[in-house]
């Protein structure tokens, strides 16, 4: 399996005052293979989100190196990183983080229109197809105030996928959803992964992590271990995966 994203000896220190600093990542190294579905778990303040934002180039690291698709993110200028986020990366956050003054369809279209890699007709067609696939086609013209949290998160997924990214980053993408919506969103992500998109998500929910292929456990800014669950195929073996993961997590003191 080709490695799409590789981080080596990542360190991240936040300086909060003149003499106060806090190290959030400590010599973190990891590799994500192409087409993998990986989750990062850990207690609050363990550095999960910081790791996600650092390896996606959204946040600067203090030391270490990150290779994405053969490119060194630490050496890239801000414009190059933006172009990378626009064309090769997709992001889903805990909140849908949609733009307030655009309707749902326009929120999806925005980054593709900015990237200008295809005709608007093609982009519109793909947006329509994505919305159909995620069951929100009828909401295209709705404002963000006219949709539920689960629906908004599906819009956020469509937006993340509109430019056919190589990798999808998720920061607690189901954190604000109820269990039904969580299940639906995770099924959608699993489907997307099956179609070849690499996914790395941060979660504190073991049921979510149980649907991913590999689980990385972090504590105190370091990787405390990882557990391979294998590809998730159907709900039939979900309970088994959840139990397996629970045992492993409890061995890590979680």
């Amino acid at each position: 399996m080709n490695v799409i994203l590789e981080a080596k000896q990542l360190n991240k220190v936040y300086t909060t005052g003149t003499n106060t600093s806090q190290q959030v990542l400590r010599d973190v190294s990891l590799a994500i293979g192409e087409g993998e579905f990986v989750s990062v778990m850990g207690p609050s303040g363990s550095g999960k989100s910081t790791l996600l934002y650092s390896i996606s180039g959204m946040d600067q690291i203090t030391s270490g190196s990150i290779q994405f698709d053969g490119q060194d993110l630490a050496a890239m200028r801000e414009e190059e990183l933006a172009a990378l986020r626009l064309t090769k990366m997709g992001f889903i956050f805990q909140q849908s983080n949609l733009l307030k003054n655009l309707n749902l369809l326009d929120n999806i279209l925005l980054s593709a229109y900015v990237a200008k890699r295809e005709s608007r007709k093609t982009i519109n067609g793909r947006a329509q197809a994505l919305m159909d696939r995620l069951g929100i086609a009828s909401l295209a013209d709705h404002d963000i105030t006219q949709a539920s949290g689960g629906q908004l998160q599906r819009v956020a997924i469509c937006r993340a996928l509109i430019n056919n990214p190589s990798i999808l980053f998720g920061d607690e993408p189901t954190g604000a959803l109820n269990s039904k919506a969580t299940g639906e969103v995770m099924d959608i992500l699993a489907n997307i992964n099956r179609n070849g998109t690499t996914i790395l998500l941060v979660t504190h929910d073991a049921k979510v992590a149980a649907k991913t292929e590999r689980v990385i456990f972090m504590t105190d800014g370091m990787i405390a271990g990882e557990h391979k669950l294998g590809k998730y195929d159907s709900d039939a073996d979900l309970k088994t995966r959840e139990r397996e993961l629970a045992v492993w997590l409890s061995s890590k003191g979680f």
Partner: protein
Amino acid sequence: MKIRILRKDFSRNKIITATLFVFIMLAAMLVSGAAHIVVTLFGSIDSLFTRSHAPHYVQMHAGELNQADIDAFASSNELVKDHQTVSMLGINGAYIYLGDNELSEAGSIVENSFVMQNHAFDYLLDTDSSIVQMEDGEIGVPIYHMKQYDLELGDSVRIVKDDFSKEFTIAAFVRDVQMNPSIVTSKRFLVSDNDWTALRDHMGEIEYLIEFRLHDPDRVHEFEAMYQASGLPQKDTALTYSLYQLLNGITDGIAAAVIMLISLLLIAIAALCLRFTLTATIEEDYREIGVMKAIGISSRDIRSLYMVKYVLLAVLASLSGWLISRLLGHLFTQNIALYMGLAPASVWNHIVPALGALLVGSAVVLYCRFVLRRFGRISAVEALREGVLQTGERGRQAFRLSRSSLGNVNLFLGIKAVFSRFSMYGVLCFVFTLCAFLMIVPFNFLNTIQSPDFVSYMGAGRSDIRIDLQQGEEMEQRFNQIDGYLRQDADVTKYASFVTAAYQAENAEGTYENIKVELGDFSVFPLQYVNGTAPATEDEIALSTMNAEELGKSVGDTLTVLAGEQERTLTVTGVYQDVTNGGKTAKGLLPYAPDQILWYVVNLEVADGVSVPDKIEEYHAAFSAVKITDMDDYVSQTLGGLIDQLSLSVVLAYGLGIAISILITAMFFHMLIAKEGAQIAIMRSLGLTAADLRVQYITRAMLVLLIGVVLGTAAAVTLGQGLAGALIPGISSMRFIIHPLASFIVSPLLLVAAVTGTMLCVSMSMNKQKLTLTAQ
């Protein structure tokens, strides 16, 4: 609780609070200052009129008069309290040299007269507002000349004509209730009785001011009719007490109005800041407000918690503004103090400016109450559940990215943002409109009155040279000499001579009043008429707008005019604008007798390649006692004071317009970018660069600026045009002579450059913004 909220608010909005304080303080200071000007102006005019014992009715007269007839009229008229006839010795500017000037006053349009101090009333005062007497060899110079040439006491004034020469020492600068304002082109110099007689023996023409003081000044119009029906001398303009008041007040009145306008602008800016901070505060404290509502605190009580800060701010800022205006009071009234002297301060001098500042403070508090009425609409349940206030954005459905044909997404987002929340951008737009208006109106006004075409507002057609021949010995003979000379002059391509003669016209009340009618061929240098055309036959007449208004005539009406003993009914063929001769003139082709002649004017055009200044020099040598003016200078000389003031206003207006644009743009977008931090972070996380976002915000600023500039320019050429016209008596409808490059290109470009530069600086903050999004 109130103190806690206050402290929290001050600490999180330090810069905005300080800026708000400064704006409210400046607005209060200016309103207070303008009020101070107005009160002082009234007091000073009143004081000047009292100390100088201003005449209530003055009939100017050039020519013979019989004093006994005037005395008899005055003693038999019960309205008259006192009367006198003042002899003014009009001396051609060519013979007058002021201070160190090597050039005489020949080129000046000012008509300089020399007088002795009066004994009964209409006194000329010194700068201490005392009645001043000149010793032999001393001269009292009008304040207008002092300002014009920076003259000082002890400087000299020389009068030189042929072999006669007399040097005076300036012993005083005189305040003259009749001729103080720069808009009045006649000025009086004060000399001793002996010197006056010596001057009269060698030069000059006598013009009389037949002056009356009445028991009841309110009956001056009744008296005016009586005088005009009396057959007493009236070969020139008649002026009344109220006109003197108006003329004395106009310059500073305009200054007060401009200051008020500026303070209005500052209040608008303060309102914009207030709206922003209050909205942001409500959005930030949304959940807390919900909690307060949920536990039963009323909207009114919640509002009062937030109002404390703004009431405190308004009170302190207004108080500071008022105090500063008290300290700087002399700067506001410098011009009044110089020209009219300051009257002892009355209670109103303290009350009215304080009321002005109070008004500003109250406006701020009321506006806050208006904005905070939103508390009433906040639902406790929604606030607790949502935690975030959903701002009502319109136009979301009207502008859809999916249906947009605009290729650039950033431009689209910029435009959409403005139209979605136009109520928010409206205030910014209003400030830009005011800035554009502020910059363009004075410039266009200046350009208009500086343009040689402005001559059409002075009741004359466009020509190269104007020759004025005033009353004097053998006037007709001298005119004929000029006429003959010009006829022979090969350099003159065309010329037209006009004689202005005195007639009487029947007014709206059915009584007769004096009217000056210019007679001649009006087709040579055609004049632009507001309505109708020039008179073409002896039975036709055209009236200046002021005359048409006063006589109640419009085009097509008839006017009865007494020409000698003969009554003629004339048809009004046209109405034109004229700021000369108090704005009351007429044009016709009537017959006239020599004793009706007031003055002659000759307009001429020289061939291409002929130097106008050389020609003027040639005519000065050839003709005696005439005033020869290059028409390009005529307007600027006539309205010199106004042009100087306007030139300064233009510079100030441009500076102020640009400074305000920069300030308001910086403040508005600084606050907006901070407020939209989450939305900016979302876009950047999607891969939009800081440059993309900069384009979006600059598009917003440019769109609002564009709308503001278009509205401001449209208002400038419509409202501004009317406003400027109203400032000059005699102009009914001013049409700006627009400098297209300056008005439509340079001014907007200056604003665009200022706003773009500011936006680039302000949007730099987006580079430093964190992209990590954990919650919206």
